[in-house]
């Protein structure tokens, strides 16, 4: 501060005296300078924080196109969506019936099969293969894998069991297997993401 007094800024010499007589004006300069530096720190912090968000090449994987024509009723495939497993299952009429028979009040995370599939495509169940408990990959999509007591998926880590609509029925997982955003681009292809 003393240096400011000794070396007045260029311009009107009268302002120099004012600064000495009126310390509050000098406080204003301090607050302004610190605030300016604070804004600067904030602006620099943004890229430092945001660099940790998914990068462009990771985001580029955020849509996946899948051909469903080879999946027979009762079969399922494991695909990859955003580096996470994706289950696509062609439900049999019996499996659809089994899912529809369950009253919503019996469910931990109440959702009907219709809400989890696309209109007119109730046989196509598309879910992430990520257990909603702690992120393990449930069994049941591959040929001969344990489908658990409800005929859908079964997580070997902590025993969560999902039904034929991918809904949580038993075990520690809190939610149904997530249904990602997807749409049918033709009768037999879907675009996930």
């Amino acid at each position, binding site marked *: 501060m003393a240096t400011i007094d000794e070396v007045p800024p260029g311009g009107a010499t009268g302002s120099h005296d004012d600064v000495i007589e009126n310390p509050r004006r000098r406080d204003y300069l301090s607050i302004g300078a610190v605030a300016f530096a604070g804004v600067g720190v904030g602006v620099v912090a943004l890229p430092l924080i945001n660099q940790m968000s998914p990068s462009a090449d*990771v985001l580029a994987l955020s849509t996946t196109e899948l051909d469903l024509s080879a999946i027979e009723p009762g079969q399922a495939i494991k695909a990859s969506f955003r580096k996470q497993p994706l289950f696509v299952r062609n439900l049999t009429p019996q499996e659809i019936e089994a899912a529809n028979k369950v009253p919503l009040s019996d469910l931990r995370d109440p959702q009907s099969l219709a809400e989890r599939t696309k209109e007119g495509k109730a046989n196509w169940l598309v879910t992430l293969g990520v257990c909603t408990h702690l992120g393990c990959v449930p069994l049941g999509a591959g040929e001969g894998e344990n489908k658990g007591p409800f005929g859908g998926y079964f997580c070997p*880590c902590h025993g969560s069991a999902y039904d034929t609509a991918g809904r949580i029925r038993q075990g*520690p997982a*809190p939610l149904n297997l997530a249904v990602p955003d997807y749409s049918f681009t033709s009768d037999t292809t879907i675009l996930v993401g």
Partner: protein
Amino acid sequence: MSFPWAQHYAPKHPLMQWVDSRLPLPRFVYNAIGGGYPVPRNLNYFWNFGIMAGAALMIQIVTGIVLAMHYAANGAVAFDSVESIMRDVNAGWFLRYAHANGASMFLAVVYIHIFRGLYYGSYKAPREMVWLLGVVIFLLLMATAFMGYVLPWGQMSFWGAQVITGFFSAIPGIGETIRIWLLGGYAPDNAALNRFFSLHYLLPFVILGVIILHIWALHIPGSGNPTGVEVKAEQDTVPFHPYYTAKDGFGLGVFLIVFAALLFFAPNYLGHADNYIPANPLSTPAHIVPEWYFWPFYAILRAFTVDFIIPAKLWGVLAMFGSILLLFFLPWLDRSPVRSANFRPMYRTLFWVLVADVLVLGFCGGAPAEPAYIIASQIAAAYYFLHFLVLVPIVSALERPRPLPNSITEAVLEGKSGSRMRETAVTGAPAAAE
């Protein structure tokens, strides 16, 4: 800061006098861990574990820096680079086994160090700041150990990262966004591996900095001792050097023998075979377990199975973090002015029940998630919180402590500290040194 009778640093050699007047670093060391730091004369071997933890950190830093010269933090080659360290790099197997088992040794001595503090009331006034900084070090240590375990990019590495970062998705609303931000993707991948490597390299030096604060805070009031009675006069203390440099040196030798036995004869005993399978995002190991030093906390995480107001998963995460964070409040939960459990019969019983409780939690955390273990971990987790939040405050108000010795010297000369501890304190543990 030291006692008035502390020896003074008086360099005789002209070169040391020249250095002392320009940069008094030797003086600083002399006053910290040399003859200039008077220490209670009655410390037992449990007071060695701080030095051991410091030595373990230095071993981790040295082996870690050289391992980083051969390791590649890229999802495509990380696993292979670790295998190349094991097979191709000269003495690479030794360095990696030393680093992996060094982490276990570090956590083991830190746990004994923490329980030493709990038994002898080291967290009480005027040493609260020492304790608080210690809890900070413990948290940093756990973060560092977790990220280090991810680096070999085996199956346990990958699924450990998946499960641990999954904790954050339990936060309502913004949890999933935070998880994706932490990972730099939707599942653990290259971005996560790289940032974990970067932070795994950084955090040990942060720990080193906090350890310096920890020791600084300790040296303001000076070290505690097994009687919990403060130093009153010069005859209660001996200079740190040569008395405790010798004693710590002996303890360090025992530590290194145990370390060497583990490293050379059972280097994979504490690891998991699954981590020698490369990470596979599409296949989960049947039984995911963290490293042994996280088991008690993993058991608390899994103990919550029923939604109550908030989802069970969020309860589990809150309880797990809470179980460590409540240690920050311990100096104010325990109101008893008597420090050492040797003179607190009720608290001493509680202490040993807590030790058993944490061992049960540890056992359950390492066991598969079967109903019997879940119920055991629920009971043990409930008791853990009961101990700190209810029993310790009540006991510290109700308990009638046994009479304290008038001074450390009196306790030593009458054998109060020595013989009584041998009779009453720790069955099978080393008795008081003096």
